[in-house]
């Protein structure tokens, strides 16, 4: 044990940082994973409908599902071109 380790407060360990980062990342990734299977299809079909009326690129439409308590929020974002 290094003698300096006995004095003062050690700064947060790197293992603790790893644990925190993983907890946040994995809970986020699990939420996406648990999303319904139809989400990509839904996104594609909505995109097709929007395209019938406005010229938008694929990346100008985003769709996401957020869970807040016992409710789910489906969020659709379409960036319309200037004119």
């Amino acid at each position, binding site marked *: *044990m*290094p003698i300096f380790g006995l004095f003062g407060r*050690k700064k947060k*360990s*790197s*293992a*603790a940082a*790893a*644990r925190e*980062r*993983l*907890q946040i*990342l*994995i809970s986020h*990734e*699990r939420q996406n*994973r648990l999303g319904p299977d139809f989400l990509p299809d839904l996104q594609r079909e909505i995109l097709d409908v929007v395209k019938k009326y406005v010229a938008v690129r694929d990346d100008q439409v985003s769709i996401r599902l957020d869970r807040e308590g016992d409710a789910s929020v489906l969020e659709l974002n379409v960036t319309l071109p200037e004119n």
Partner: protein
Amino acid sequence: MAIVVTVTSGKGGVGKTTSSAAIAAGLAQAGNRTAVIDFDVGLRNLDLVMGVERRVVFDFVSVISGEASLNQALIQDKRLEQLSILAASQTKDKDALTEEGVGQVIKQLADMGFEYIICDSPAGIERGATMALHFADHAVIVTNPEVSSVRDSDRILGILQSKSKRAKEGGKVNEHLLITRYDPVRVDHGEMLSKEDVCDILAVKLMGVIPESKAVLKASNTGFPVILDAESDAGMAYSDAVARFLGEDRPLRFVAPKKQGLFSRFLGGGD
């Protein structure tokens, strides 16, 4: 009916093949007829770790394509009578693994009287890996206490829970966590995720903790499963893990730093 155990991890280099060899040998040692299959088509290595590389004539893919019979391709281990190895193909394309073909080989092994079929998964989440986990009854998730390995293990758990045959039929694959390359000293110093951290994050039942050990390289150098090195820490830790898998209750060993003498402590020595 044979029990299919898939050894998987997502990430490469964490110890899947070492663990597959050790688990297969451990199950055979305990008296179970065991076959271990290398699913890493194109990059086979289980043969080398098991020390049978010079005896491979036919392989997994040649059985699936009908070029050889399963009997011709199975390599009987010379140390353990109950253990057989099915090597991966070194040349063929990984698309050669079809769900139907893999299913037939597993069924044939079961019909031959094998009690355990260990599937050594390749890294990644492509065909070889998904085929390896498709028929799993049990999955051993091999994880290093390190961020990218833990994340990839979680990804593989997601695939097990959605894409495996059992999951698709509304059931569940039994999951077991095997932490490898564990360094208790570094954990003690806060430089490495602890086994509790990894268990909490992945929420999978712990099957064993294998310490970082010189015995593992020594075993692969000479081509024998490290579990047969009964004097080594890694060998003993694998034996414990296999015993736990078979339902025995064994305490964890090699998870606390070795006690250092006063002398080496002041010199900052020890390893």
